[in-house]
């Protein structure tokens, strides 16, 4: 074999090696991300602040104590003072709420979690592409690729991200991606006793939540930020931040 032949063979060998490295393609799972577009309905008129969702989330996703992928806040709005509500959330509402010492006014619970924004600020700021959007509208973190720079934690206007104390990466709600891709609902929606939280497939016209969204005055959190949040709140008071 002369030098000319070797030089001609090299590119072919490189292409062949690329296929060897790629390995056999994985079997396509039973789930087509293009058929779904996930969101959630959170009905404040139904939330009783029991904290079942917070507990279930921690058990399902091994969320460390003192950190929350979802949490519940209690609002107290005195008369018309919607600019200065009194908000508490003891241990994220995990063990429920003790009776309030504040009397009168408006009082209600607000469950919170990652809004899985369409134009998410957290994804935009990640310098390495470790946080991303799936084709079905879920914002996820690649724990093996995250550097732990915490930029996304600062960028999230909803405070939904935290720094995992032992894994040393960013962490947040995955919308139970390991469950919804198996045809189950999220852990928080599964255990919610009043139906205050319900997963919604916005691409499925037969989803009952879609009918609810079309006939009720729903709102997302901080709509002026135009993040494209997909957590829809029914009965959201103007005092909620």
């Amino acid at each position, binding site marked *: 074999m002369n030098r000319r032949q070797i030089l001609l063979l090299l590119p072919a060998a490189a292409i062949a090696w690329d296929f060897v490295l790629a390995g056999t393609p994985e079997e396509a799972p039973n789930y087509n991300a293009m058929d779904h577009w996930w969101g959630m309905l959170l009905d404040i008129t139904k939330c009783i602040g029991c904290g079942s969702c917070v507990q279930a989330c921690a058990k399902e996703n091994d969320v460390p104590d003192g950190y929350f992928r979802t949490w519940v806040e209690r609002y107290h709005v005195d008369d018309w003072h919607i600019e200065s509500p009194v908000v508490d959330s003891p241990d994220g509402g995990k063990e429920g709420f003790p009776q*309030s010492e504040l*009397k009168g006014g408006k009082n209600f619970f607000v469950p919170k979690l990652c809004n899985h924004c369409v134009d998410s600020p957290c994804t935009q700021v990640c310098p390495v592409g470790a946080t991303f959007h799936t084709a079905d509208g879920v914002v996820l973190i690649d724990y093996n690729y995250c550097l732990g720079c915490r930029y996304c934690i600062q960028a999230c206007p909803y405070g939904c991200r935290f720094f995992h104390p032992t894994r040393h990466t960013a962490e947040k709600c995955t919308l139970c991606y390991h469950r919804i891709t198996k045809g189950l609902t999220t*852990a928080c929606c599964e255990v919610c006793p009043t139906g205050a939280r319900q997963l919604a497939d916005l691409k499925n016209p037969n989803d009952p939540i879609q009918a609810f969204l079309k006939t009720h005055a729903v709102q997302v959190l901080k709509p002026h930020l135009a993040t494209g949040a997909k957590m829809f709140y029914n009965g959201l008071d103007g005092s909620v931040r």
Partner: protein
Amino acid sequence: MNKFQDYAHLIRVAAVFLLGAIAFVAVRAAILPKSFGRYGYYRGDALQEITSRLVAYAGHQQCEGCHPDVLEVKAKGVHAHVNCESCHGPLAKHAEDPSAVKPVLPNVATLCVRCHSENIAKPSGFPQVDAKEHAQGQLCNTCHQPHSPGFEAGGKK
């Protein structure tokens, strides 16, 4: 011709840039994960890693498959839409191997009050009591049937 007199300088500079470009492409190809960019600006394999996580909560459909009797009782009462694992906890392991993993009965003393203790922020229509005053120290299931705590005549209410 004077213009191109010292063109050797240009060739050296061009060579340095070329080498730099080759080095950049080579290093990038070596350190970039294979699946990066398969679906977007992220590592495609991450999706597989996240979806392969095991579930802890089996889901009520699975419970109802083996316990249709409880479903029947539950369907008649006000707890019809409260899913099994809301009170009984995560039981995917039990569903997978019912004989190996036995669920523990929930502690009634702490379970019921999670939802039904009085709180000003709860929707006013939701049944809530001051547990101390209401139960006088008795357990809730002394009077109430947890799977169907309705107010029908006869039996526990």
